[in-house]
């Protein structure tokens, strides 16, 4: 079993009485690319600051490389941070910025110079050593910030929305570069973003955060295909949430009634009478007049809209709920107003809530 390089144990933190982190725990293996994904205000930056030592948790422990560092100041931790706005020292040139941590360690000048050159070539900024931060573009500053944070070979690199200030094209390019850099260096990355595409694209492990808690921790595929909570389903991708009551439970399968007369088949073991909520991805739903998988709902097509690459269709169910469906075909054979059968493979639907009493929510 690979060794855990970072463990967060039941971290609590509040500011002025407002709870920001409500008991989070996480274990990160060496060499992983871990992303904390969540909306602004969900506590992801605070989590990062606690790992860096810039903030003290009210409760809980931070274990780094087997040692408890909870009470250690940031300068004593083998962790470095790429700050959100890079925080390059404006009065130092690129070389001095990158060399700062090495100089604090009293390395010899030729050792420092060699290392800075090496780092500049890693981030593809050879020859930029004498520039001042103000003379660099956003993307270049970002590379300098990464080089500066890597200078002392940290066990863990923390990145706080490092691509947030860049335009979309540069973002995509930097995503690829960052991921390649992480694999090349073999350093563990803990990466913060509110951008689901970024998270899915780069991570080995995603921790979906909301309201100071982890909603779900898993691989990108897990998170996308098998969301564990309603929030995880809705924050990432386009999901349809359907609620119903289990009417008939069989071995590994159940008939769930959404409203009288409308049933869907759900995989899993349930008890009759149980309330459940299902998440089905918009691109996994099909419609037409030849339902497969042994069940279908009946709905009226309300609207088609072509959004480039995919056709987005809204279908109104008898329950009044609107389903959002995306299909690769830019033209639909069923015009708006048609009544169609709506169906999906029960294997692609994820149960995101169960056991709630009737009437809740």
């Amino acid at each position, binding site marked *: 079993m690979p060794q855990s390089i970072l463990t967060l144990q039941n971290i609590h933190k509040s500011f002025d009485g407002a709870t920001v982190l409500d008991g989070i725990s996480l274990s990160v293996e060496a060499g992983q690319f871990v992303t904390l994904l969540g909306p602004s205000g969900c506590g992801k930056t605070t989590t990062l600051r606690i790992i*860096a*030592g*810039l903030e003290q948790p009210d409760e809980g422990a931070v274990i780094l490389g087997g040692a408890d560092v909870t009470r250690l*100041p*940031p*300068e004593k931790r083998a*962790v*470095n*941070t790429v*700050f*959100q*706005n890079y*925080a*390059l*020292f*404006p*009065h130092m040139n690129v070389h001095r910025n990158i060399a*700062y*941590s090495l100089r*604090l*360690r009293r390395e010899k000048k030729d050792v420092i110079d060699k290392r800075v050159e090496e780092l500049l070539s890693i981030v593809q900024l050879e020859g930029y050593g004498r520039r001042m931060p*103000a003379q660099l573009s956003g993307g270049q500053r970002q590379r300098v910030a990464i080089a*500066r*944070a890597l*200078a*002392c070979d940290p066990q863990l690199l923390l990145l706080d929305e490092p691509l947030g200030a860049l335009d979309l094209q540069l973002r995509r390019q930097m995503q690829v570069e960052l991921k390649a850099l992480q694999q090349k260096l073999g350093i563990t990355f803990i990466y913060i973003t509110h951008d689901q595409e970024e998270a899915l694209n780069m991570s080995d492990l995603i921790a979906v955060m909301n309201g100071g808690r982890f909603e779900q921790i898993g691989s990108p595929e897990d998170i996308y295909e098998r969301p564990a909570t309603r929030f995880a389903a809705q924050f990432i991708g386009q999901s349809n949430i359907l609620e119903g009551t289990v009417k008939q439970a069989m071995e590994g399968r159940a008939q769930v009634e959404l409203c009288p007369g409308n049933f869907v088949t759900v995989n899993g073991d349930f008890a009759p009478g149980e309330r459940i909520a299902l998440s089905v991805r918009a691109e996994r739903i099909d419609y037409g007049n030849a339902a497969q998988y042994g069940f279908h709902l009946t709905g009226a097509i309300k609207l088609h809209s072509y959004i480039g690459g995919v056709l987005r269709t809204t279908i109104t169910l008898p329950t009044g709920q609107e389903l959002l469906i995306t299909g690769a075909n830019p033209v639909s054979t069923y015009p708006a107003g048609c009544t169609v059968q709506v169906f999906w493979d029960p294997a692609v639907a994820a149960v995101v809530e169960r056991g709630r009493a009737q009437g809740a929510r």
Partner: protein
Amino acid sequence: MMKKNSWRSRLFVALVLLFNYLPIFIVVLYSFNASKYGNWAGLSLQWYEKLMGNAQILRSLKNSLLLAFSSCALSILIGTAGAVGMARSHFRTQNLLENVSMIPMMLPEIILGMAYLSFFSILKVSFGMVTLIIAHVTFCIPYIFINVQSRLAGLDPAYVEAARDLGASPTRAFWDVTLPLISPAITSGALLAFAMSMDDVVISFFVTGTTSNTLPLQVYSMLKMGVTPEVNALCTLMLLAVFAALGLYALLRRVLRKRA
């Protein structure tokens, strides 16, 4: 609309400038007058020559420089330390401290002067350079304090955090990062304080001793004998010094704004 009124607004600006700078210009002009009396008798540097030969004036100039430099140095230390300390305190305390520290700037100088006079008398401190320095430090501190404090307030805390993250102790981060980033503010505050100290009459008048005449006090006492061209020459030199300090101040403000 703008076009139509432009000659009028230009005239207005010209009048304001004339009103402000004509007296100064005349003093400067007359410092180069060859005649001792009000009539114009051609250019001459004789009054400057005479000034340089006046031991009393040179001594008071020396006093003034000593006073301005030492009170500036002391207020840099106190004002900067105060601003840095305040930036780390709770924001409610900050508001209170900020207002209290502004008071010496707002109070009429004559009240401050009287306060120092009675304070030093009660303590039985003999009047002289020491009392001058103490008094000047108190009214110089706010200029440094306010400048540094506003710079610190606008400083992204991420700079210091980045330094800490890279291995600097809090003290080291202060010297490597905070101080260089606030130093333009310290300098610009110090220049302003220097100018204020150099031309202070009222407060100095109350706390000076017999041997510690400052330049402005010297000018004041010379005026009792009437306005001589020598005074004009002295005023011109002081003006030059003050303008130089203010010019430097403006330049630094620009640098500061560019950095921020």
